[in-house]
């Protein structure tokens, strides 16, 4: 199935979704595609896990959603960042960088 490297951690997935949404409002499938594209296919999120993540973020008040029609005239739920969400991207990204640095540091020293 998926290679272990693409098994995205839950917190990471939230960050990726938020980051993706900074570009423009997007529907669920589109977000999944965008993550895959931007990571050049390395991060292939389990698409089913996207939707609980959306609910989680919505409950945190970081994103909101509305039903809109796509360019192909289909109804889809579009997610967009709220003000709080925009602020959260910064702090979440920072904490992610710290985390990566810490892991990297450990990998280098041992």
């Amino acid at each position: 199935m998926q290679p272990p490297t693409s098994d995205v951690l839950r917190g990471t997935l939230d960050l990726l979704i938020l980051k993706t949404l900074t570009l423009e409002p997007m529907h669920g499938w589109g977000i999944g595609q965008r993550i895959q594209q931007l990571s050049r296919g390395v991060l292939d999120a389990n698409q089913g896990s996207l939707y609980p993540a959306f609910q989680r973020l919505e409950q945190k008040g970081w994103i909101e959603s509305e039903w809109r029609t796509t360019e192909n005239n289909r109804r889809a739920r579009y997610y967009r960042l709220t003000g709080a969400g925009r602020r959260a991207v910064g702090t979440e990204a920072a904490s992610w960088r710290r985390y990566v640095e810490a892991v990297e540091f450990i990998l280098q020293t041992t």
Partner: protein
Amino acid sequence: MSAIKGLAARVRALLFRRATEQALDDEIRFHLEQETEKNIRLGMTPDEARRHALVQFGGLAQAREAHHDVYAARPVEEALADTRYTLRTMRRAPALTAAAILTLALGVGANAAIFSAVNAVVLRPLPYPNPDRLYMLWEENPEKGWYKNVVAPANMLDWREQVAAFADVMGYTDSFGTSTLTKAGEPVIVKPTYTTGNFFSVLGVRAALGRTFTDAETWRTGQSVTVLSHRLWRDRFGGDRRVIGRSIELDGRPVQVVGVMPEGFAYPTEQADLWQPWAWDPANRQQVFFRRAHWLDVVARVKPGVTEEVANAQLQAVVVRLQRDYPATNKLMGAGMTPLHEFLVGDTRLPLLVLLGAVGLLLLIACANVGNLLLVKAAGREREAALRLALGAGRGRLVRQALTESLVLSLAGGACGVALGWWGTRALQAMQPTGMLRVSRFDFDWTVLGYVLAITTVSGLVFGIAPALWSSRRLPLDALKEGGRGGSDSRRVRRWGERLVIGEVALALVLSIGAGLLVRSLLRLQQVNPGFDPNGVLAARLSLPGGRYDSDGKANAFFTRLEERLRTIPGVEGVAGVSAPPLTRTGYTSDFTVAGWPAGTYGSEVAHRRITPDYFKVMKTPVLRGRTFTVDDRLGSPNVVIINEAFARKHFPGQDPVGQRVTFDRIPDSTSTWNTIVGVVGSEHQTKLSLAPQMEVYEPTSQSATNVLSFVIRTTGDPAVLGPSVRMAVAELDRGLAVESMRTMHEVRTASLARERFLTMLLLVFAGVGLALAIVGVYGVMAQMARRRVREMGIRLALGAQANDVRWLVVRNGLRLVVAGLAIGIATALLATRAMAAMLFGVAAKDPLTFVLVPLILVVTAVVATWLPATVASRADPATALRSE
């Protein structure tokens, strides 16, 4: 802001679960379609593309489930499932459930009933506008031993005019006895309250019909008016609205009805039938008696925004000025103010709080009992809990389930408790001695229900927390290993059970010692010699309407004729009149001085009563010295008095008071009347058995007439049967006269202890229930222990132990717990009973007898309670006990 949005999303999901799920499905469908299209674009066949999309998505069910978990619905659903589960287990063990619910209902019901009384009397504010601005004003005088005393009218009027902080000040009294209402059906006795004209306006109440009084009606207006209570208006005047303006007759004088108060208005007491303005003579204001005689209850309403400190400081300034201006009457006269509500609650606060404490203990005992039941049950389900833990259930989840169980149980108990409490409240209202509490109706209002809900929930948590924590803390492996067949012999469950027993015994002991002290106190009171022989004496009270009996001569002549007429009733041994029978109330008190004392010395607070010559013979009050009154002591002959022993002891120690002369003026002058003491009699208790007899002088009615006289009638038989003959005799002499009250002196004596008896009885009932619950608890834990150790006992017996040894083993075990509980209980009781010291008579709060006897009773009952399980254990058949494994 974002938190609110998130919460809204949660609530939406919970409320519109179906819609939420529908939306999710739509979203997923869109996703799959997009993915399928993409796959087709990449060159797959439609079927393949769709399959690939589904695989890529990773399971629809999981996505939905995960989505569901994120929403708040989970905890609620779990709680519902837990509740259903609890109800199922409750149905499966109906006896246990019923026992638990009944126990809780007893505890909650007792609390609800007592709290409803506390709520009505102590907590609920007075039913007047801005009640917190109403204050009782009172006088104090160190010389007379007065504190919170009634007020002299002139002082009240000065306070009203000179204290700027007071919006207004009014004065009233309802202690002038009763009036006879005629010309409204049969003559009837009514209770009037005499008031200043602003009485109603200070309280802030309006009449339901007509008007209340005007300020001018404090003073004489030439027109006597009255305002009726709603009850009197309904009962006596048939609720007729045309009563306004009608003239009625009170004590033979015409009085015009000007108003009817709304239903429920009951000030100063619920017994108030009607109100009349003073109609003082304006000349009184300058009279010395207006400042010397104290009889007014005074209520002030302070201006908005004025604090008690400020108002009191202003009052004190006026008090000091009055002390300076009127040294003859006010030299040592102080004054103070107390919030009206606090003043009215007065000495009912302590008994109510003691009762509230008692039912609180009762509820704790009930909780301990139910907690023990749940613990036993939890122990029985230990393997189930262990299994669930092993299978991955969260500990929090198990705790929640156990708590749900206890909460459901406590709510069921609470609901039954409310029913029981409602009934208890009714019983309390019906049984409380008249006038004991300021309010005689205590409704089940929202405060009471809120309180019940609170104690119910708290007790559910209290008794549920132990089993809950216990069942979740277990290591699954231990529990599964340990349990053979139904074996749950964990040391922990036993220790919890033991702790509960110790606690219960301690609580029950505190409760029982409290009740024991009250019982001892009541017994002491009943042994108090009232100073007279109450057996075989009937007391009938009459007051002569001033209209027709407008001179001392007329009143005395009537009373003399009546006394003679009463003597002719068959079976009557003796008849006498007294202005107030003992154990009812004091008459007025005065200062006095004795001829021969150094100038300026005087005594204070001697009570006065008027009697006819045979009084001491009828009451069998011992005459210690000198003589009693005779028919020769009459108007014109030298004034004579008889004093009681308390007076003689205090002011004539080592001398013979007989022959000495007293006057009831502080500083005698040429107008003073001197009275010769002709006898000394034993002291009667004037008001209460718990109060020492006051100093008292008796005056003959022939020299000091009165319109109100009680006849005491001694008979050879049952005094109660004399009633009709007495009424007939009165009617024979005066048709328009009603006997105000008729009671045997035995009843009077009993009634004087009604309050103490009522409290003792209540506390005794609570202690009895508490004790029973505690003993049931002891029994339950011991039975459980005996059952668990049946195998051990079997082995002991098989190895040659005697049945007796085994039995003692169990009993000893139980006693160990009981004794521990008693030790804690005694220590607690020593502290707790201090609070009720003021309620005790002749018994110390640390009364050794009570502190020995009550624990002894508890030990004996506990031994009995452990005996049964012990006997069961001692009969364990070694063979079956061993095989049962």
